[in-house]
């Protein structure tokens, strides 16, 4: 069952990737693209976890954890830049 479900999941995730990428490329506004980038990184987390199951390997865990811990920092920096210009202020 898993052998069928995993490719299906990957397919669904692939579709999600495509839609997100389309938003990333189309915009139209910068916040739109940043949201898309953020979503892309969360999609990657899901992809990594699914890959871990499919390869029966726990070695992917750290990558997912790292994206979860740090991925939002980029989003925060970019959106703060849009709000304030300077991201590190006094």
């Amino acid at each position, binding site marked *: 069952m898993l052998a069928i479900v995993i490719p299906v999941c990957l397919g669904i995730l*692939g579709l999600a990737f495509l839609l997100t990428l389309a938003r990333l490329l189309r915009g139209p506004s910068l916040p739109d693209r940043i949201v898309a980038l953020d979503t892309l990184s969360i999609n990657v987390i899901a992809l990594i976890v699914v890959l871990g199951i499919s390869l029966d390997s726990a070695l992917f865990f750290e990558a997912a954890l*790292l994206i979860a811990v*740090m991925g939002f920092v980029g989003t925060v*920096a970019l959106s703060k830049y849009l709000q304030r210009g300077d*991201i590190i202020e006094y």
Partner: protein
Amino acid sequence: MALVLLIALPLLAAALTRVVGMRAARLLATVIIGFPLAALVLLLSLRAEVFAQPGHALGWRVAWLPALGLDLSLRLDGLSFLFALLVLGVGLLVILYARYYLARNESAVRFFCLLLLFMAAMLGVVLAGNLLLLVVFWELTSILSFLLIGFWSWRTDARQGARMALAVTGGGGLALLAGVLLLGHICGSFELSEVLAQAGKVQHHPLYLPMLVLILLAVFTKSAQFPFSFWLPHAMAAPTPVSAYLHSATMVKAGVFLLARLYPVLDGTNSWFYLVSMTGLATLIFGAGLALLQRDLKGLLAYSTISHLGLITLLFGLDTQLSTVAAIFHIINHAVFKASLFMAAGIIDHETGTRDLDRLHGLARYMPHTAVLAIVASLSMAGVPLFNGFLSKEMFFGETLAQGLLGEFNWVIPAAATMAGALTMAYSLRFIYGVFFGRGQPDVPNYPPHEPPRFMKVPVEFLVVICLVVGLVPAYTVGDLLAAASLATLRAPLPEYSLHLWHGVNLPLLMSLVSMAGGATLFFLRRDALRRWQQAIEHLSARRSFEQGMAALERFARAVTQWLEDGSLQTYVAWMLLAMLAVPAYFLADLESLAGSVPAGAIDPIGTATLALLALCAIAVVVAHRQRLLALVLLSGCGLMVSVAFLRFSAPDLALTQISVEVVTILLLVLALFYLPRETHDRPGHGRRARDAVLALGGGTLLAVAAYAVMTRPYDPVSTFYVDQSVPGGGGHNVVNVLLVDFRGFDTMGEICVLLIAGLAVQALLKGMRLPTPSAAPDGLPWTSQAHPLLLAILARLMLPLTLLVAVFILLRGHNQPGGGFIAALITSVALLLQYVANGVRWTEARIAPDYRAIAGAGILLAGLTGLGSLAFGYPFLTTAFGHFHIPGIGEVELATAMIFDLGVFCTVTGTTLVIVSHLGVRNLPPAQAAEDA
């Protein structure tokens, strides 16, 4: 050893000038004159030994650079004896003369030092027993000549004259180097004794002609032969003792000395005869003609020197043996009378303040003694009987008749010689008559002129006496010297010749008479014509042409340089890419088949999708590159996909690294973006874009081809060793980490150094940097009022402990699972930097304010000391140790020195990252704070 002393004595004297350092020319000259005098005595004491048997040479040799064949080898035979005698003898007289010539406030120390150095160098040229050594001294004379011509360095004519002389004679020296190298290559040695014995081999060698041309180039430039004569008149900007010494008696003779020195190996071919004789002939006439038209007294003497050097060269080029003897004889005579003439000219200049022939006349009344001396010397120059010049001129005329170079046009040479004789007579008369006779009082600055100090005339008197004595009794005075020198030059039994004043009425005598009469006629009857010609050529200045040529050369050089270095980085990068892509591609084109023997693996959908997304993002970055923030967002997408690719292709450590580096890079670039314009408006032309596209596609293709070709070929990597040894030898399960901290820990050591240096460099760059800070968003909308939104501020604080825990986890885990010091450090850095973003600099640094730089430095120390630790146990640097310890109640614990090393990595990376980003972040603090910061 005596030969060394010959050169060393003037050198010692030169050193002494520096030591004594007296500014009084007269006293200094008195002190130092002993050294050349001693050298002269030494030389004369060797006379018997040199003259004793024909062809005998004294030698001294010490190896200097055997690899090159360059030995410190000296050789004294008849020829070098003659020249050494001239150098020392005239040198002595010049020093004596200069003692009175130099003005009180001129730097006598420098002058005498240079003059003595020149003397040593010139002695080196004539005594060199090794051809390369000769080149060494040869160029030294050029350099010293440059310095002496430019002695009055504030004068434009001196500076320009000096540079011109250096360019011409120095250039000739370079040709000499090439010629000598060829000659040495042909002979297998640079030792004169060996080279001179191989005439046959040399002359039949295919390289003979280029070698000859190169050597003759040196000869002709140094001896101011046509068409390289132009430098010599401008060398007259030098003080007169220098002109007398270098530019008449010695240095310019170095060229003809070389002709004599290499005569045995070079002479005897048609190339030699024609090149040498025709150059000499042209110079003879050219020099004599121009000498007649000079207005400057020293200019006249300079062109006269050129002409006489041409005469000597012509003699060397004639195909008779006796012509060579005549050449040597004329070298002696010319040195004597020309030196005395220069000194006389110097006296005139010194006492009257001018050298302008149009202003000088009737000086015989004011300085009769000098006048007599100058007249005698001039007559000798003109080749009037009773004086030495006559004798060699007679021989010269005789040889022009005896030679047979031009077949049916053979008469041209004697005819031209006679004409040159006439011209010589004419300019000699001009000198005598123009300066010393004529009516009216001279129009000179120092009026009335008077005789110089007594001892200033002594050298002139001495030389004039020689002119007379040699002219009267040549055989008894210079007979031996001439014979010895000629023998050394010819290296064959001497031809029959007789040194007598009177040989009876013969054709040469007739030619003499014709030339003297013609010269007198020309001068006395055609003075108006001469004056017109003189005015006609006055605007023709070789110096101006030369300077213009140099300026043109400089303009050309600047044009080329500016064309290449247009200051545009794109041009440079394009050049570089062109080289780095096209040339390897050229060699890669030899590859027969792109695909190797390994079958390409099955297509992996996930990998393919990842790569496709990656490529799309990359292309999107290119499309969007003018909108900077957008490009940055898209680039970040690329980075994300690269980490997925790493993960997919079995490189979890790389994925972790990429993810963390990506975040820090984004922070960095966003910080930078604040100061940068948001969009780029550059619109390069189609040509530029097409060029860039070609380079880009070329680069992409090259890398793709190389990657594919290599990946489809088998290989046998050493890395199986790492996999095998990772656990037993390195004590870790994560092979990549064991590689980084153990197998190739040294690379990591270097890598953290790079990072630390980058941090220091950034800190250094940021010091004192002032950047304009935009007060509103580029689109004109106001910034939001909240600098630190509550949600972000609070959650960032909450995230910090959690993230630190994750960092510790990644650090400790790295040895066995994906992770390690580097990634842990980036996580820590990001967590801390988030505080800067979320809570501001003041808040953050009030709570977390360690010295990041010190931490970074301590990290390197820690890693390095860990490496050194192994030395204590007799193992090489960076040898690791690890062990499994069983602790009761806790279980088995693995400890490895590599972990301490990794901790060092952690500290350095954390410290550096924080230094870089936080320092960039706190750039635009409120002014008060910025002042404190600075």
